[in-house]
């Protein structure tokens, strides 16, 4: 991994890899969370009721706006019955932002291609909405912290404890997402490595 890149560079490259825009603050946070997990980089995520949240990522988004690289537009305002913001903010790279992302991808070639791979994996694992992605993020965060071996059944079993009103369809989609991104397998490997070293 290149040594000099910042959290802001990662956010810029992730936005670019998702086609230059991400709809909703929750979606942005959770996608960045999964990229950080897949790349094993620390982007400052900590536990939050509605799934892992990183103030450092939020701050990096602001910095990208200062530089004129990112537009943040308010696309209607609302909160669903579960307390989540509903597509209030759309984030999209400006022309300057796209050009800057190309330069960064060149400068941090290894990081750029790793992010590209992680984003493709996330996209191929299912077209999850912000709620489903939050379920997957919160469940994975919990298992990773416990270094506990996890299966789809265990993850599905954990989700009703969130306290959110989630449908079985949403749970299923989140669990399949974790399986397809191979994160459940990652949990098992980490668990074994941990046990072996203990």
């Amino acid at each position: 991994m290149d040594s000099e890149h910042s959290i802001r560079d990662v956010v810029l490259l992730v936005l670019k890899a998702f086609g230059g825009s991400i709809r909703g603050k929750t979606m942005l946070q959770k996608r960045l969370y999964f990229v950080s997990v897949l790349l094993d980089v620390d982007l400052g995520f900590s536990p939050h009721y509605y799934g892992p949240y990183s103030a450092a990522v939020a701050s990096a988004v602001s910095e990208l706006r200062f530089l004129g690289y990112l537009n943040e537009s308010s696309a209607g305002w609302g909160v669903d019955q579960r307390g989540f913001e509903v597509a209030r903010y759309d984030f999209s790279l400006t022309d300057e932002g796209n050009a800057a992302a190309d330069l960064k991808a060149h400068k941090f070639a290894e990081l750029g291609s790793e992010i590209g791979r992680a984003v493709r994996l996330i996209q191929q694992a299912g077209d999850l909405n912000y709620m489903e992605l939050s379920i997957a993020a919160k469940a994975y965060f919990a298992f990773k912290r416990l270094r506990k071996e996890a299966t789809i059944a265990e993850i599905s079993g954990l989700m009703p404890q969130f306290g959110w009103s989630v449908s079985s369809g949403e749970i299923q989609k989140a669990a399949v997402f974790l399986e397809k991104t191979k994160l459940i397998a990652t949990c098992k490997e980490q668990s074994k490595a941990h046990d072996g070293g203990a």
Partner: protein
Amino acid sequence: MSEPRSIRDPIHGFIRLSGEEAEIVAAPVFQRLRGIRQLAFANLVYPGALHTRFEHTLGVFHVSSLLCKVFDFNEEDTRLVRLSALLHDIGHGPFSHVSEGALDIFADRDKLASRITSESKIHELVTQDLLRTDRELIRLLGEKMLGKIQTLLSAGYGEPVLRSVVSGPLDADKQDYLLRDSYYCGVKYGIFDLQQLHREFSVAEDRIDGKQLMITPEGVHALEQFVLAKHYLTAQVYNHRVRRITDQMLVRGIVLGIEEDQVDELSRLYCYDGHEDFVKNYVHWDDSRFMLMFGAESLRGKYCHDLCQRLIQRRLLKQVFNAKLNVLPNNCRELIESITKPTKKVKRRGLEKKLAEAIQNCGIKLQTNLSDPSNLVVVNSYAAKAVKELSRNDEAPILVRKGNDLPSTFENESDLFRSLSSKPGESFFAVYAPVEYENKAQKRNLQKKVEEPILKALEEFGDG
């Protein structure tokens, strides 16, 4: 063990310490905080701002103690949180955050590779070393307890709500410094209703992640007041032009003292390599010793002496240029935005030499007898952030209780916060130089004269 003590404080009234806590306060490593001013040279703008890390730390301890009661922590968690509050600023060096900047510049990152990432703060490592090695602290608290304190301060320990007290958007640190800095600066911007805020704190029972800090709907207005206090104090005090200049002068004095003057004592103080001798020396420094040592007559003719004396006599560098980042030539913006980062040291010096030349070519004299006047031309980039973006502890996701429904967030519940945060923040680029003028008209003329040449130099810099 010592007797419990009460200490009178102008912000919070009596602060009550247990015997164990009184012994920590009496330890040399804690008493040293009496010599480190909270706001460095802010007293050159606000003469009353002479308060130190010592009384701030006691204030943070007091607020933390109140919060332990509010959240009904058990005895063990209460002890951990109170001790962590007492020790949270123990690693501060002379002039507080100025030393943090210098440590970042001179840390030997190769030797520290196993302990740091690109986002690591070196002063946090110094704090960790202190908590791990200070004999008096080990004698008083034991290594196990100090380890727990370190963990709580750096990554969190136990329930998330414990960490919220020592580090987070509503931590005890901010609650104290907003009130304290306002009081000592004599401004009325940092005022908020501490009692009301505490009354409306609550805990969200998160079955997956553990207990998290939450406020009641009645606390939304008190939290809005807190956010505004932070916003105003940042604009009026922390980001004051003169304060930015004095901080930059101190850091420049340290940099030139090490690199040009080759003052060994400065290198020993700021070139951190993780060796245990570093903190042994570090804990013997405070603001006064720094100014006496590096502003000493024996160092006359050296850059560090010159900059220390300028600060002592209030002969400051002047801001000759200040512009929003987005009006600078497109080709240099991102480079300029990160120009103060340690990794950009060489580029920064190159730019400063170029700008010094541009200023002198306008017929403006750089007022110094030192060998290379361009060393006293200092560039700075800084952000004037929107309310919600003031720190990496943004308030937006703070939970708000919603009766029997699931909690909402502060951003969802506060119309004021939402409308304030719709105004985007801005980043600026400034140039400071050793120039003199007698009145505002001369100042305006000078700034006008250098504007175009500086913009041209920036464009050339971006191309290079």
